[in-house]
């Protein structure tokens, strides 16, 4: 995988960039199909997502005169009002309100674009509402399939964190269909779209089947060779739920830990308390500061284990010092010119190194004070887990009203590693969670049980998950999940990202590469049977940043796709209602 600097200092792998370019093309093809000036009226929830593909300047180049929020009813001067809407009822209501309240002349054409798709029900509702009163006002209703969002420059995500919950709680298979459509969309820019699809796990197999069907039904249009295209040899799909355990554990790579502690947002930024960040107690404790991570140093540091951050940062500082270390007296004019050119980058790196030092320190501090006990218990459970009794630490954490997500994750780890909990233990956990956290928490806990994150050992099969259960002990033996010598400083094993625990998901993929995907479910025929590289990996159900770091150690994988970049907390927070 080649990492290179593209326009706007965007550090990303070629494949991600091609994906982003495709989305950008689709976006502007939609806009350019309308002649004349445009005012974009935004569904706010989409703004951040779409802005990952195009800057305001770029919009301007495509005749976009202004950007308005959906509740801003001022009249516009443009020829078109272009609505960017997500396919939700809320967006629909706002659209109708806009049509009612905005005082645009009827010569201004209303064009609706649903992103990423015009969900049938929403479309029908729009048609039917007020006997088609609103529908008639609209010049066109189309969709722009912006589905793949770049993450950390090396992964494309569908940004659907609710997928596991929807599938396991509601059986809502449309999420799998969306995955298939998205994958198919990406295959459109693949040099040879008929490459084989390998899959493992129920979800993955369904997605593979649907993707193949879409592929078979579409007319094969030869790719425009002038456009950059993706060059994979095969696509590999795998279920997150083959390994629900890893996301429940604490990630220990820099990016993973930042995500656990501060949540990396959709725009590759995180916000931290300003007074903490600047170590200035005088500041308003509620003041937040946004830190952009989409820059060179973050991409260099993101996969570094938190314990190796010191070494890596000092290397960077050394580089900066060397860059700065020049002797003005002895420099030639040419050297001087070169220095002047390099200066902004040096300054930028200096500032950025400072930021990362502080972020690393803050993470380290949090890890030491709050997470260290949790990490310790997780480790203990991984090595030996007993389904017969409650873990005292967890018990105490519940009594002391520790963070609910921490508690739930630990119980999940307990249950998953022990292959289920005895009824009495499960009952005790349930009761205590209710007593400390209330019904909402109990509800969530029951749903975790339905999702298979918590299991009743030898139970009557009530409240059981419909997905194949994880057999941790067996998997541990088969895949060497807890290897002995793991080097956190110079990673030699994918287990470094969790300090000695290898994500089962990653291990299964490693094995797949080794055995050339033998025993995986396969659709389509190999085109390049002798070339084991250029794999596009799609993890259905979410992937943690620590796992991405691990996968980066596997050079055969050239692009990582996932339904969401997740953490244990995000998984739990996205547990949905029935």
């Amino acid at each position, binding site marked *: 995988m080649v990492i290179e600097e593209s326009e706007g200092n965007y550090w990303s792998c070629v494949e991600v960039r091609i994906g982003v370019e495709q989305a950008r093309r689709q976006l502007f093809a939609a806009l350019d199909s309308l002649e004349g000036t445009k005012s974009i009226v935004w569904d706010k929830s989409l703004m951040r997502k779409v802005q990952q593909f195009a800057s305001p300047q770029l919009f301007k180049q495509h005749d976009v005169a202004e950007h308005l929020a959906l509740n801003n009813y001022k009249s516009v001067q443009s020829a078109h009002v272009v609505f960017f809407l997500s396919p939700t*009822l809320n967006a629909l209501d706002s659209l109708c309100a806009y049509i009612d309240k905005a005082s645009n002349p009827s010569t201004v054409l209303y064009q609706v674009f649903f992103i990423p798709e015009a969900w049938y029900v929403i479309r029908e509702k729009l048609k039917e509402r007020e006997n088609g009163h609103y529908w008639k006002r609209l010049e066109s209703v189309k969709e722009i399939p912006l589905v793949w969002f770049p993450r950390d420059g090396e992964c494309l995500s569908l940004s659907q964190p609710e997928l596991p919950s929807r599938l396991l709680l509601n059986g809502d298979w449309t999420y799998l269909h969306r995955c298939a459509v998205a994958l198919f969309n990406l295959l459109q820019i693949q040099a040879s779209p008929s490459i084989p699809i390998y899959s493992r796990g129920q979800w993955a197999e369904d997605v593979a089947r649907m993707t193949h069907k879409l592929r078979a039904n579409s007319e094969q249009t030869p790719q425009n060779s002038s456009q950059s295209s993706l060059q994979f040899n095969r696509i590999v799909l795998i279920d997150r739920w083959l390994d629900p355990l890893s996301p429940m554990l604490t990630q220990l790579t820099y990016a993973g830990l930042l995500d656990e502690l501060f949540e990396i947002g959709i725009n590759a930024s995180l916000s931290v308390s300003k007074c903490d960040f600047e170590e200035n107690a005088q500041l308003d404790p509620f003041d937040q500061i946004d830190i952009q991570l989409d820059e060179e140093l973050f991409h260099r540091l993101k996969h570094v284990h938190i314990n190796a951050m010191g070494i890596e940062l000092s290397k960077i500082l050394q580089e900066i010092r060397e860059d700065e270390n020049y002797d003005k007296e002895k420099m030639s004019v040419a050297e001087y010119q070169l220095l002047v050119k390099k200066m902004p980058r040096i300054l930028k790196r200096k500032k950025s190194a400072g930021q990362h030092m502080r972020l690393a320190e803050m993470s380290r501090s949090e890890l030491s004070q709050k997470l260290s006990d949790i990490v310790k218990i997780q480790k203990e459970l991984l090595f030996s887990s007993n389904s017969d009794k409650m873990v005292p630490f967890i018990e105490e954490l519940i*009594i002391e009203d520790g963070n609910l997500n921490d508690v739930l994750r630990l119980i999940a780890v307990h249950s998953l590693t022990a292959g289920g909990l005895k009824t009495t233990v*499960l*009952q005790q956990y349930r009761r205590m969670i209710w007593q400390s956290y209330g019904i909402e928490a109990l509800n969530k806990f029951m749903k975790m049980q339905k999702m298979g994150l918590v299991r009743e050992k030898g139970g009557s099969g009530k409240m059981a998950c419909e997905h194949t259960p994880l057999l941790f002990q067996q998997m541990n033996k088969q895949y060497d999940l807890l290897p002995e010598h793991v080097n956190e400083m110079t990673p030699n094993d994918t287990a470094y990202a969790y300090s000695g625990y290898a994500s089962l998901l990653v291990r299964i993929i490693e094995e797949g590469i080794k055995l050339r995907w033998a025993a995986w479910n396969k659709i389509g025929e190999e085109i390049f049977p002798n070339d084991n590289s250029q794999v596009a990996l799609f993890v259905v159900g979410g992937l943690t940043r620590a796992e991405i770091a691990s996968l980066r150690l596997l050079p055969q994988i050239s692009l990582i796709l996932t339904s969401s970049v997740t953490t244990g907390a995000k998984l739990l927070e996205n547990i949905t209602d*029935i």
Partner: protein
Amino acid sequence: MSALDRDRATWINIATPDSTLNDAVTLRFQRCYSLAESIKFADPMHFAACPYSGPIAICWHNVETNWTISIQTATGRFLKEKILVPDMHSVAWTRNHQLVVLTYRGTVMIYSAVGDLLNEIPFSQSIHDVRDLRVFETYADDSGFAVLDQQGRIAVVNKVTEPVIWTISPPSKEQVTAWAIIRQKSKLTRVVVAISEIFYSGHQGEHLTVADTPWVLSNGEYRHIEFRNDLELVAVYHNSGFIQIVASELTVEVHRITVANPDYSVIKLGWVGSSAVFALRRKGHDVRDRNIQFYSAASNSDGNYELLTLQNIAVESDGIKLYGGTDVTFVSIVSDAEKAVLGVVSQDDSAFLYEAAKKLDTNESHSAYENAIMVRDMPHAIRQCILCAQAAWSVEIQKTLLKAAKFGMAFTSGYDTTEFVKVIKLLRVLNELRSKRLGIPISFEQLQILGESNLLNRLIETGEFGEAMKIHEWLETDGPEGADRILLNWVHGILKRTAASSKTQYDAVEIKKLNDKIIAKLSQYPHVSIADAAKWAIDAKLPTLARLLIKSDPDESKQVEVLLKLGDITEALEKAAATDKPQLILQVIRHLMKIQRRSDYELTIRKIPLAQCLYQELIREDSDCRVAGRQMLALLEQASDYERQMLLHLDTASNEMNPSERLNALRRAKDASHNLGDKPLEEILSDVAAFAPGQSQRNEDQLKIREAVIAHASDPGKVAQLKQQAKLADKQVFYWTIEGLVKAGKMEQLFDMAQKKANYGYLPFIKACMKYNKIEECNKYFAKVTGYENLVAAHVEMGNFVTAAKMAFDRRDSDTLQNIFMKSFKDKDAYEKVGRLVKSLPR
């Protein structure tokens, strides 16, 4: 005699002015067909030929009032042998290939070209005693027609396809002697009526008013009014023996023609192209003594040409057709181009070119070049040759002329051949159409006006699907939709025949054969929709065939659509589900929701899990929360899905603000867990439900149990009550009481408690005091702490990292030391010191 000579032999000058030949009006008599078998023209009879060389209708009566109509091609092939019409008055054809039949009772019947009755329009309310029928061309490929009655009333329909009747009548009660009706582009329909020597004119919606006609003749009456095809000029006949050519507004006379031999009366007047008129004349009532005279419409000369005839006449836009028993002749005006190229001793460039090209194929080919270089304006000569080829009937002459054009192109550079190619394509089509089998003697000009689409329609209507497809492919202009239309009509025809035959209709083998036949043909044209054919099969009441057909359509969404139309709901749903396309499944579900009762469609949907799930989603998004919740619950109840029922109730309990609703939801969740048969779950939910009312009584609905204990920590009675109600463990009560007391600042009570019972050690006391920042209180409890582990923990809680580290160091307890080191991170000084200890600890 060469082909050319044969062709030229039929040229006849009807006006030869003194000047050059080129200004003369020359008629061309083109024998289109000589038929081996004579077309039966009886007498008395009616005759009508469809414009643009369509079929002819011949009507004769067998008994007094009963008429038989037969529809044939120009070559006598029957399209419909017999249509029986009692009481027929007259017939006429419309531009779009439909036969208009008027009865004496004032009913107009519209038949297709193959004799199917399409429509019946009663006129009896508007008129009585019909006298005459006229069809007129309108725009957009349609025709209108008008009926004149004995009282002079005229009832008009502007569009045959959408008949709306309106009437107009002249102000005078006197007998109408001549009339005409036209529709000019972007104008209303106009009626012109002559009563003796007074002309009336008016548009639809107006009254007929007297026209200003200074040119009218006297001592007689006007008998015929005929507009030229372009509607700019009109020919009128006065029974004193004159044909007058008048501008269409009736104000100016352009030319006057004297009709010789007044013994004959003119029974039909008409235009031949744009520069000649003809008059069909008869002596008395003797039908055998008839002749046609041709006159130039512009120059007064005696060069008119007379033709004895018994033939039937059909007027086309560019000439007339004469239908004899065994021959069909097309009379048209020879164009300038033809005269230039083919005229005797023509000195035109094109004639040289033509001569040169002719020599190429003979042993004089060496002189071809000499002829060619005599041509001064080569592009002009080429154009003339092409124009001439367009008008030629003989294929041989067409070829020679086109060869000449091609030869000429060799002498030019950059000649645009588009027109040339187009003409070749069209000629190929013309020659095909003119074949005896098809019998469509259409001219180049007529085909241009008729258009490809209409031509295809005509072929489709007469069942010439193969020809239609061939011509469509040759012309390459109508896009895939043309092929679609042809094929679907072909299918339509098959279906109609099948539906009509009760034998094949129910014969499974026959139906299968039919299906295979249709599929085999349609699959050659991948863009043609099999689903459309299937829909037609449904319309033709052939559901079995439709079911077979639709299986072969590759488009799943269309399959589903047809299955829905067939009423095969379950199958449609299954098919949709098999596609894995949510949009399609939702479409079926929405359809079901519209046509079935709730209980019925829910039953159908429940059988297919993919659909069931989408239906649930539909419900979730469909209405407001409460309704959605109820509907969802109903679904889960139907499916006996107790797990999800319970979770749904718990969701309600979590989101509900109203305590009694919340309690209800909890109780229902408990019931669901009971039905689920999960005892422990039921137990815990019943505890939850039992605890809630007490909370409500205390007005503490929003408090969790832990918070409630903390809030009441200083009241042992309340705490005991809570403990009992919520089945709390001693440890929980212990911890929370401590926290509650510290929080409330009841330090004495806390100390008391520590004295009485400290089953879980003193660490909880220290933790609580540290949490609420009561550092000085900590020491009281720290003093009571015993044992290494507890002491280390207490030190760490109180921030004495170095002391704790030293204890661990002394015990060589590296794990604990490491742990302390981590915890001390924030205290930089301690972190450093502990770090040193960690490093110095021997491994």
